[in-house]
């Protein structure tokens, strides 16, 4: 550690960091634009100028840019120096020459970094008397709005989009004061990370287009810490609500997972919460047209409670919270609780969990993936199944070459990039089809899952002779396996990435075997947001449920559309005497319900999700839904149990009681209690306010009905108030309870550094969440039975599931923008198999005429079908000319 002097006071500093970073880490106010904590320094905006003095006798000093100046031991600086202050104000003045004075109508207003910095420098008088420049804006697609007139040319957008996220269709055009940041022409931004521009842009050039449709200022948004529900990674998010409508999702920094960035599925998939297909009242559909009269909640409970006297089978869901699933499991008993996923999917997830629990390899966090020095990806198309992981891998690519850079500080971004050129960390990819991170791979293979698994097993054998060999490998595959083994062996922090998405247990086992053979981290992508939680909870598959269900039994389906899961949904539902569906969306399963109970979405309930690393994370209710019908799934199940006179749920007054019951029933899951502070947490007697203290119209919003201020909805489940009263975010909150990033003078999300221990460090109080899954301590459970090679069978095409970031997740598909980005149904075939522009594809419970996408890398005898777009996928199909 070094000591530097700022305005006469000594501060501890890491000499490997730059002065701006150090000042912000010490919570000193110093304005900046082009620097970004995740992207380093480029010295463009000149906003962070300070005075540097040679020694204590130097009184003149010279202006330096803090972001480009190492915090060297003994260095002396001044932020308060009059010339430095004047220069910083002058930079704002220059940036304001052409910036429109449209804050009142700008979507960025109230969380604009440019506003904050302008106020910070004190510049307030306009001396420029000439006309402002203006630009034509572009239509950038459904997610991001473009307003170039507001641009202050900080270059952050292109640096994020191109350098950080690997995009190609956003660039900077023109020169001098005529720069243009946009696409070559109108059109949808292609990157699945484009939505981050909304947060990366320090002003209102790139704003959230979905927010624009139902706009509210940051200070008017009710927020709570939440978890993304659109894949298994568990990115931390900040949903914002006003007047009963979810308005947007923002990133919630979690150093170990999402850092500063989200994918567009996570950011824009929220609109199902506001969808007209929402179930908002309890219903008892009847008659041939399934028409339904709304039921009073108590009527609905009274209707279901007597059914508990008979046999009840429960089907849970990997998109419902651990608490909701546990409530159902409690209601029906562990033997009659089923996971609501197909046998194939359950086997995959169970295999993944077993590999993480029984083998010696730990699941790395995304932050650890980002620091790996060698990576093998087996089978997983991460950009489509876990996009934030793919973005992490793009950063991994720079790790090894950056390690080799000597004499240049890590934060000197352009200089480091210039030195490393195209050098990359060794990353090997083996996937069924090409992925959008193939450009990162040193080498790889596109092959059917068996062949991917065989490659993996061969790598494992090359690394460790205890792992069994693979017979009959092609010489080039054997050579590739040797090469990969050599790289992994030499690495200090190797990581193996795999997942369930290619539908192969063999691939999962092969990946684990490689990780075990070289001591690598094992990053395993799972299908859904709580797949891991559900697997931990236990319970059979949908096929098991069908076997357990006797004719006339009551069937309770929790937050699940069985028609997405199995082609046997009709048969299953038909046999039930009474179908109870607890869900927030109307869907095909709900249409078959005898009783439909309206559940809260993630934004209207609290609970715990367990991500792919086995980390239990709490999401908190963002807003209280209007009316009294919608309630948390676990509450419906509790109410039914209580009404039926069942004792188990009698003490479940609040979420903490459910968690306590879970911990008591399942000591292995007791860690869930510590995922976040309980509802009893207080700061000086106060809960945390979900609303900013500046929320406007608190009384006016309801004035058409009553001039009296409505009483805030009580919340027994969380240490938050549905109100602006209570502890504010400027207080030192536990990291899991930070509902938004804001600090006096820092209205934008750039306030983050005030919540971190240091820039890029963990949040104060530590990273939220608790690991429920730990590696096994026993002998390595080597898999002895690598699969044989893929052999094509006459008249049969092996189905390869193909995932789409926009399209394969049903919830997000209710967002119009996501649906717009999704492909139309298709079948992908190898060139040799492409029998025409469209083909008839048939399989077990599957028949469709689909347009053909020819994929040169696909192996003949395999057929790619898009997950989520054509119904449940059979294992094999037949393909005939249309």
């Amino acid at each position, binding site marked *: 550690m070094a000591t530097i002097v700022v305005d006469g006071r000594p501060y501890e500093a890491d000499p490997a960091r730059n002065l701006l970073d150090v000042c912000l880490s010490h919570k000193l106010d110093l304005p900046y634009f082009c620097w970004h904590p995740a992207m380093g320094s480029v010295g463009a905006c*000149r906003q962070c100028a300070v005075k540097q003095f040679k020694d204590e006798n130097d009184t003149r000093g010279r202006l330096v840019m803090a972001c480009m100046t190492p915090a060297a031991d003994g260095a002396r600086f001044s932020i308060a120096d009059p010339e430095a202050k004047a220069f910083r104000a002058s930079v704002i003045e220059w940036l304001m020459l052409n910036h429109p004075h449209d804050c009142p109508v700008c979507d960025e207003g109230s969380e604009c970094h440019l506003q904050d910095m302008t106020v910070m420098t004190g510049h307030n008088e306009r001396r420029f008397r000439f006309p402002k420049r203006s630009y034509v804006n572009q239509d950038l697609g459904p997610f991001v709005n473009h307003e170039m007139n507001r641009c202050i040319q900080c270059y952050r957008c292109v640096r994020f989009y191109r350098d950080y996220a690997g995009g190609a269709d956003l660039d900077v055009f023109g020169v001098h004061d005529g720069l243009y940041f946009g696409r070559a022409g109108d059109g949808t931004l292609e990157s699945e990370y484009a939505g981050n521009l909304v947060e990366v842009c320090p002003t209102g050039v790139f704003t959230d287009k979905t927010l624009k449709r139902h706009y509210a200022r940051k200070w008017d948004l009710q927020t709570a810490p939440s978890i993304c529900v659109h894949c298994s990674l568990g990115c931390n998010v900040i949903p914002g609500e006003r007047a009963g409508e979810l308005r947007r999702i923002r990133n919630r920094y979690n150093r170990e997972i999402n850092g500063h960035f989200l994918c567009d599925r996570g950011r824009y998939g929220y609109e199902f919460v506001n969808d007209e297909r929402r179930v908002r009242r309890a219903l008892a559909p009847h008659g041939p047209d399934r028409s339904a009269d709304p039921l009073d909640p108590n009527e609905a409970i009274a209707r279901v409670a007597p059914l508990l006297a008979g046999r009840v089978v429960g089907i849970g869901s990997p998109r419902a919270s651990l608490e909701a699933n546990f409530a159902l499991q409690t209601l029906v008993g562990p033997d009659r609780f089923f996971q609501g996923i197909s046998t194939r999917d359950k086997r995959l997830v169970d295999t993944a969990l077993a590999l993480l629990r029984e083998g010696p390899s730990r699941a790395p966090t995304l932050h650890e993936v980002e620091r790996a020095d060698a990576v093998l990806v087996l089978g997983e198309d991460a950009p489509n199944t876990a996009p934030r992981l793919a973005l992490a891998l793009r950063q991994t690519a720079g790790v090894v070459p950056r390690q080799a850079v000597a004499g240049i500080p890590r934060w000197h971004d352009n200089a480091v990039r210039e030195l490393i050129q195209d050098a990359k960390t060794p990353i090997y990819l083996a996937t069924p089809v090409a992925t959008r991170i193939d450009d990162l791979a040193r080498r790889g293979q596109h092959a059917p899952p068996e062949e991917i698994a065989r490659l993996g097993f061969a790598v494992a054998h090359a690394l460790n002779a205890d792992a069994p060999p693979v017979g009959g490998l092609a010489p080039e595959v054997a050579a590739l396996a040797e090469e990969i083994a050599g790289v992994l062996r030499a690495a200090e922090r190797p990581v193996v990435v795999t997942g369930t998405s290619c539908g192969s247990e063999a691939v999962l086992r092969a990946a684990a075997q490689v990780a075990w053979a070289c001591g690598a981290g094992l990053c395993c992508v799972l299908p859904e947001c709580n797949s891991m939680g559900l697997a931990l909870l236990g319970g059979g598959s949908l096929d098991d449920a069908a076997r357990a269900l006797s004719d006339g039994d009551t069937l309770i389906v929790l937050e699940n559309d069985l028609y997405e899961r199995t082609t046997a949904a009709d048969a299953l539902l038909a046999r039930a005497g009474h179908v109870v569906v607890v869900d927030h969306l109307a869907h095909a399963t709900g249409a078959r319900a005898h009783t439909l109970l309206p559940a809260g979405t993630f934004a209207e309930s609290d609970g715990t999700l367990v991500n792919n690393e086995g980390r239990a994370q709490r999401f908190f209710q963002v807003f209280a839904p209007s009316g009294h019908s919608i309630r948390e799934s676990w509450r419906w199940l509790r109410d039914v149990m209580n009404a039926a006179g069942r004792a188990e749920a009698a003490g479940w007054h609040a979420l903490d009681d459910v968690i306590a019951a879970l911990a008591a029933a399942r000591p292995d899951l007791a860690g869930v209690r510590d995922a976040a502070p309980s509802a009893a947490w207080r700061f000086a007697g106060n809960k945390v306010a979900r609303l900013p203290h500046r929320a406007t119209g608190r009384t006016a919003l309801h004035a058409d009905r009553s001039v009296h201020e409505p009483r805030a909805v009580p919340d027994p489940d969380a240490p938050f108030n549905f109100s602006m009263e209570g502890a504010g975010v400027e207080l030192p909150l536990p990291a899991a309870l930070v509902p938004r990033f804001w600090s006096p003078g820092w209205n934008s999300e750039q306030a983050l550094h005030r919540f971190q221990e240091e820039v890029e460090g963990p949040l104060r109080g530590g990273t939220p969440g608790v690991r429920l899954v730990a590696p096994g301590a026993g002998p390595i459970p080597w898999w002895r039975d690598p699969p044989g090679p893929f052999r094509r069978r006459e008249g049969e095409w092996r189905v390869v599931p193909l995932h789409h970031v926009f399209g394969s997740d049903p919830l997000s598909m209710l967002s119009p923008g996501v649906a717009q980005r999704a492909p139309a149904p298709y079948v992908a075939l190898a060139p040799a198999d492409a029998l025409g522009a469209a083909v008839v594809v048939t399989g077990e419970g599957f028949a469709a005429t689909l347009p053909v996408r020819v994929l040169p890398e696909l192996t003949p005898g395999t057929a790619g079908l898009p997950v989520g777009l054509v119904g449940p996928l059979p294992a094999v199909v037949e393909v005939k000319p249309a």
Partner: protein
Amino acid sequence: METPLTGRIRADGEVVTLAEYRRAGGYEGLRRALGMTPAEVQAEVKASKLRGRGGAGFPTGIKWSFVPMGPDAPRPKYVVCNADEMEPGTFKDRLLMEGDPHQLVEGMIIAAHAIEASVGYVFLRWAYRTAERRLRRAIAEAYEAGLLGRDILGRGVDFDLHVHVSAGRYICGEETALLNALEGKRANPRAKPPYPQVSGLFGKPTVVNNVETFVNLPHILARGAQWFDGLSTLSADGGTKLYGVSGRARRPGLWELPIGSTAREILYERAGGMRDGYRLRGFLPGGASTDFLTEAHLDMPLDFDTPMKHGSRLGTGTMILLDDRTCPVGMNANLQRFFAQESCGWCTPCREGLPWVSRLLDAMERGDGRPGDLEKLAHHAHFLGPGHTFCALAPGAAEPLQSGLRLFREDFERHIAERRCPYGGSA
């Protein structure tokens, strides 16, 4: 008086061919250099006190000495010739390249040997079509004669030389912006350190020198450092310098003179003095990005160090005259319009400050100057200064602005007070 750099250039405008160049002793410097170790070549150039002729005057031998040498040094290393001559009033490199291109080729091979570079680029201003044609031809001749390519002159040295024609931006003359442009990127400058000697073209060790710097090398190597240093007795600097005059002189032009020659000699003895009816009010000694000097400075030696002591710079050594019938505000408006247009747009003060300066000066020329405008100009002259911006473009632009404001303040004030240009000009 010796004129080693321009002596062979033909009066008829035709190019000096390889045969002619060799007859006049060409490539003898190279032959001698190839007989020396790179370290010895560097030592010879260091001893000659040759300083970079692009404008900054950094000692060439010292510049080279920062290049990592030896078997472990990153490779390939590059030698790049900055021939993107776009400084207003400057046309010296054009003459050298059009008239005697082999001199540049030879200089670059010597430099390549000195730093063990294997690839070279001439980064050429797009408008220099004749120079391009003649350089390409000279390079082809050199390849044919075994002076370029593998095993040059049988001495085991390899060097390939390419001509890259610039897309045409003033900022490409900034050596790191030039390197970015050469890599196919936007021509934005890079932050230094790292310097190009360590991380230059494609991140590899690179030396960027000006055309005029390179063409001195064959002579230093052929005739020795001492001879070179002795070419001028007028200054601590060695060698000759190409000096130019543009503006209302009787005979504007370009001359090779011992470095340290005075402005008076250049203007009155070479350029024939001012045209009839014009009086000298001031001059920019070395291109548009140098501070105004006045008659009082006419007897000052124009070498690298002396003008600095008087608040200006030698720059490219090609002076632009301001006469008494030309409006100093209008001249500055013209210059600032150029600099504003040529800003790369990377850093805020340059991108936003220069257009504001340009608009203020244009307004004054239109008769729309207002009280307070001079304070705004002075504010920019200060805050666009060295260290405040990302590269030297804006500080260069600030030089004629701040010296103009100081030396011709009355003119600026009259523009505002009279709400017109007293010289009858309009922007």
